[in-house]
């Protein structure tokens, strides 16, 4: 009986660890990254994942002419400054946050509608930990009412 209880405890513990890891990014996006969008209105879309240092991600989105947009790219504290670039269909780099003091946000408006790519990289840390750091990375978009 005692062994069954111990086994159950381990299973519940593992399930709750797995759930917490998932739930962390939702909370991180809502409570931390979304604040970066103020005074813009968050579009309501959710783009977040757990990334490890050195890992890269890409997001594709159409941005429309005449609209004012804000991109916010945020990472958990353990990941350091998340690097991001905004790239057009001609592969031109329109914005690189490393050239802007590692800013988490970029505000822009478009003269004509365009499909853009947001390329993200979690930098490799300089810590002496044996294991690479992991944490939530969230990409959020805000716009202004016209």
């Amino acid at each position, binding site marked *: 009986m005692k*062994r069954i209880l*111990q*086994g159950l405890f*381990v299973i519940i513990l*593992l399930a709750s660890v*797995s759930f917490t890891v*998932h739930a962390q*990014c*939702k909370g991180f*996006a*809502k409570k931390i990254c*979304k604040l970066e969008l103020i005074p813009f*209105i*968050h*579009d*309501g*879309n*959710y*783009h*977040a*994942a757990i*990334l490890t240092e050195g*890992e*890269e*991600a*890409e*997001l*594709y*989105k*159409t941005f*429309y*002419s*005449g*609209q*004012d947009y804000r991109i916010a790219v945020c990472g958990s504290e353990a990941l350091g400054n998340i690097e991001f670039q905004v*790239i*057009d*269909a*001609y*592969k*031109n780099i*329109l*914005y690189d946050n490393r050239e802007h003091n590692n800013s988490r946000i*970029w*505000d*822009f*408006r*478009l*003269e*004509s*509608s*365009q*499909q*853009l*790519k947001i390329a993200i990289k979690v930098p490799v840390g300089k810590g002496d930990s044996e294991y690479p750091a992991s944490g939530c990375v969230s*990409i959020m*978009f805000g*716009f202004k*009412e*016209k």
Partner: protein
Amino acid sequence: MQRRHYSMKIITILSVICILFLTDCATDKSKQKQKDVAIEDFLSEDDIFDDISKAKKIFYSLPSPLETAMLIKSAGAEYDEQLLNPVTNAGNYTSNRSMALNLGIYTTDLSFASLFDQTQTSIKYMEAARKMAEGLDITDAIDDETIKRLEDNLDNRDVIMDIISETFLNSSSYLKENDRPAVATVVLIGGWIEGLYIATQLVEDNNIQGNKLVDRIAEQKLSFKIVLRMLAENQKDQTGTENKDITELIADINALKNVFDKIKVETSEIKVEPDATTNVATLRSQTKITITPEVFKELRSSVDNLRTNFVQ
């Protein structure tokens, strides 16, 4: 004592196996997603997608219901409540597919009504969206408190938009973090189609050429490519099992592909113009849109058929 030690050893070994199993599942899921991305076959040389790396995490973003409604309004559209999906239809939706599609549709209708200050309609559509979310077992996305907050802020459009944005974020994050990304995709596509339906219906036959709203509709060709990619990515789940709702949706959506193929949207390179005073950069470029009145009418008819299929 020795027996107890032996039991603990077994539990430890089992725990390690469980952890390895969980890690392996996550890796397999990632591999499957990368494999699905590679299935695509509609790339063109000027396409932004042509250098997608299979080793990276890829996100696709469609205009949300709120952004869709905003784009329609900013193009000069008028409000017409007759175009919304009646809330009385909410009871007809019992399958996961219909509830997911209509969660997106009702959220776009809700956003559209809110942007035009139709407060009582907004409450009705928030209730309809709540019904769909509950039917999909999305807990806590829209609750009594959400409705009360909406009722308490009927004269404050900023707060209303924040409520809509937050409820949509709650739904999509809940679905994605509970391994139901395909349902999240269907919700988004439902909302996007509803926006396209409202916009196309608002254009009169004698006002197609030179109409800003028509240009906005034609530009949806850019987002349509994202729709196709999102569907392809979710056609199989992490175990490799086909998602029949997505397969059905791909077949339905293909009717639009034939029409979008007749629309041309050409864009020039972008020149970035920073503004140190406002900190808002302007991305200067040109877009050339080619859509004939006949193609527009064909698109309107295809969208109407698709939307009728979704709301019936």
